[in-house]
Every structure is written in structure tokens, then in C-alpha cells.
């Protein structure tokens, strides 16, 4: 019952904020959050500062990606030529979520994971690798959790299977 109510609310919210977008690019309205951000941004900037600002985020994402490729649970999803793009998108998304003055222009979490199947095991593994990366860069535990609290609910859009994980399939391009 609760799931149904929640699903309806989510669907209503999603449809009310739905915008037609150019391929892979969500429309950004000045002064409000990006429609595809996946959660509301934080109010203050303490967490963003605790992460070392955008510069800190870039370093964390570099190590995060190394961890994701080294972890057999996440390797199939990240061991590809999209790493630079994914890292840049993550930096923007985290930066905006932490009210760091950035705009995330990537796709929403549902469509950005549409060409793969992510399960809970993979989702948790990613969180774990993110924690390792944040630890490595001395982000305080409570600041880590403030960001994780913004990210964790995205499991609803990112996870698409309770069965086996299926890594992304990229369309062949002519370039």
C-alpha cells in the first residue's frame, strides 16, 4: 500500500517537473535547481567546504573512479571510455547537491542508467567505494553522511533489478 502511494507521489512529482530535453542535456533554469539533479540541494555550504570545494570533489572523483574500476562488483559498469565524462558529471551533480554554485546538466538518474541493470549489491558497492574515496581525502564522517543522505534515495531510480547486474551497452557511434 505504502509503495503504491509513494509511487503515485513520485510519478506526480516527476511528471510535474518533466521537461523536454535535448539528447543527454536537461534544461537548466537560472536560480533553481537542475531538473535532473535527483534531490534537493542543501541549504548551507558547510558540507561543500568540508569536501574542499569543487577542487576537492575533482580529486575525490578521480580516486572514486579508480576504486570503482578496481572493485569487481562495479568494474563492468565503469571500465569503459566514459570515465572522464562520468567524473565530470558526478562533480557537477555533487557540487550542486552541496549548494556549491554549480549546475548539473546531465541526464536524470533514471535515463542515465537506462542502458544497464543495477542491483542493490552494485549500488551498495558504489557507495562503499565512494566512502573509501571520501575517507582518503579526509572528508569528515558527518559531512560524508550529509551528502550520502542526498544520494541514497536515488536507489529508487538507479536500481532496476533485483537479479543479476547487467553492465551498460553503449550505442556505436560513427565518430
Amino acid at each position, binding site marked *: 500500500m505504502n509503495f503504491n502511494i509513494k509511487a503515485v507521489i513520485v510519478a506526480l512529482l516527476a511528471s510535474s517537473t518533466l521537461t523536454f530535453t535535448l539528447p543527454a542535456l536537461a534544461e537548466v533554469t537560472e536560480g533553481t535547481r537542475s531538473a535532473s539533479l535527483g534531490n534537493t540541494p542543501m541549504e548551507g555550504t558547510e558540507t561543500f567546504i568540508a569536501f574542499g570545494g569543487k577542487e576537492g570533489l575533482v580529486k575525490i572523483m578521480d580516486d572514486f573512479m579508480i576504486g570503482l574500476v578496481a572493485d569487481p562488483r562495479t568494474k563492468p559498469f565503469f571500465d569503459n571510455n566514459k570515465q572522464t565524462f562520468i567524473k565530470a558529471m558526478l562533480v557537477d551533480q555533487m557540487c550542486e547537491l552541496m549548494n556549491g554554485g554549480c549546475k548539473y546538466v546531465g541526464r536524470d538518474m533514471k535515463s542515465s542508467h537506462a542502458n544497464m541493470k543495477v*542491483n542493490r549489491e552494485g549500488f551498495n558497492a558504489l557507495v562503499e567505494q565512494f566512502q573509501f574515496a571520501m575517507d582518503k581525502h579526509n572528508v569528515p564522517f558527518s559531512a560524508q553522511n550529509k551528502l550520502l543522505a542526498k544520494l541514497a534515495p536515488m536507489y529508487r531510480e538507479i536500481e532496476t533489478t533485483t537479479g543479476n547486474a547487467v553492465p551498460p551497452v553503449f550505442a556505436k557511434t560513427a565518430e
Partner: protein
Amino acid sequence: MKTIKNHVNTKACNLLLGNILLTSALAAVFAAPAWADDAQFSNKLLLTGGVSQVEGSAGGGLTPWAVIGGYGSNNQIGGNVHYTYVKSSDYKLDTYGFTVGFYDRFEFSVAEQRFDVSKLRNKVEAAFPGAIGRDTLNQMIIGAKVRVFGEAILDADTWMPQVSVGIQYKENQDKDFIKSAVVGAKSDHGTDIYVAATKLFLDKNLLLNGTLRFTKANQFGLLGFGGDKHDNYQPMLEVSAAYLLRKDLTVGAEYRMKPDNLRSPLNPALQPLTGSNNSINLQEDDAFDVFVAYAPTKNISLTAAYVYLGNIATVDAVKADFGKQDAVYLSAQIGF
């Protein structure tokens, strides 16, 4: 159920199981560094499966939580073995067992408890020979829990907790004694039924749990079920709060209401033994604890706590004034 019971029930098996658990616990502690980087082993986030509470279900030290034990995620099976040692001023309790979580949905647990009453026995023996007649009281607990809805950890943007319902079937193995006039329990077995709601407020590093348990158990069942004061199911509230200091370190506190069913002091059958109506006091108190849980690796959780258990049994006639039991609680859990 029957098969498991028969296997677990025999004393020899108990000792063997105890030894295996202890050996594997020690082995695992020493082997820990080799496991530390084995990320494939488990797929929940650290400490999010709780620890094994004193009756074997996943939760805090005293209270079952809505979380499903083991580090298996929603397409996996995970489990753990645990050993818990509680030493109060005048009693001792050993608990060991295993917990298996299926697909983050269903949990099954078996625990064996040995409650050491030798100090009370020694005090009572001279005045009332044979009144207790044993050094330990034993019980077996089979638990099952099912997650009904919610994600305690991941639903960080709502107030919706994770809610589970569970049962703990308990069978006391000192049947005749706990039903005798000395204790006065009405039954040697009982089933606790509970509903638990657990919520992690991730941005506050705070986990809260509330459990409503319907029970007839006296001292967790170690003194049987029901008594002359009450022999009906009563709702008991249990609450826990835990604060996450680090991803591998949590501190918290719990309060557990317990029924007060036994009326031994007024049991006329005791008068010839004790010479008074008030010489054995089995009044039961609520319990609370403060704990610290540490997970050196994903597979190991160590819990230390101070537990207050109040009165268990006081026998004024022999100066066994055991009315305020402060206890040390130590627990180790190894996950698979």
C-alpha cells in the same frame, strides 16, 4: 523446526556448537587482516545489519530491530554466528547461535542461552538444600523476522522507517524447575511476537528504533513464561538510539520494558522451604544498556555494553541480596 530443535537441544551438541563458535570467532579475529580487503564478501554497508541481540535476532544488544541480519543484499543470503557474554554482579549469561538473512527480506535465527545461577544456588543450598538444584538454566530460541516495508538506510529523504514483524519461539530446558513452586512459571515455552520500526537519519548520523513486543516471558524466558501475577500477553516497548561516530563505530543506548509475572514471595508452597512469604523475590524490572559497537572489518562486529537488569532473584533469608544487577555485556559476531 523439530529437526533443528533435536539437533540443537542436546547438551553435547551445545558444547560442540559453543566450541566451534568460539574457535571460529578466535580464528576469525586473528585472520581479520587477510579478510579486510575482501570486498566481495558482503554487500550491505558497514554495521547496517545491526548486531545480534541477546536473543539472536539482528538488532541492538537488548532489542530486535527491523533490519535483516547478515550482510547479504536483496538478491543474496548472508549470515553470521555470534557469541555473547553477560556478566552481572551475581549471574552470568552465555548466548551463542547463528542468524541467516535471506534477500534482505527474511531472517532466521537460532540461539542457545545458558544462565548461570550458581552463586544464588550456593547461597541458598545450605538453608534450603535442593531448592535450586542446578547451576544453569538453559533455553533455546528460534527467531524469524520478515521485513514488511521500508528501507531503514536508503530512504534518507522520508520519515518512513523500515518495519518488520518477528517472532521468537523460546523453549526453556529446565522445565520442571521453572514450573515448580520455587519459580512459579506457568509454562516452559512461549512465543514473543514483535513489530519493529528502524530508521537511520543519515544526515544526522542517528539511528532510532522502536519495537513493540507481546510477551509472557519472565527474564527473557530464562525463568519461564507467565506467573501468578500475569499469565497473558502484555505489550512491552523497547527503544534504541544509536549514534554513528565513524562508519565502523557506533555508540548507543537502549531501554527494554519487561513484564513482571512471577509472584513467588506469596506462593504458599514456598513457606515450608523459606519460613516466610517474602524470602524469594522474583520481581522483574525493566532493562537498559549503553553500548559501543565496532566493526574492524565487514565480517566482524564487536559489541561492549553496560547493562542494568534490576532484580532477578533476591533471597533475603540467606542474604542473597541480588536486587540490582549491573552487567558487562560483550559480544562478537562473525559474518559470512
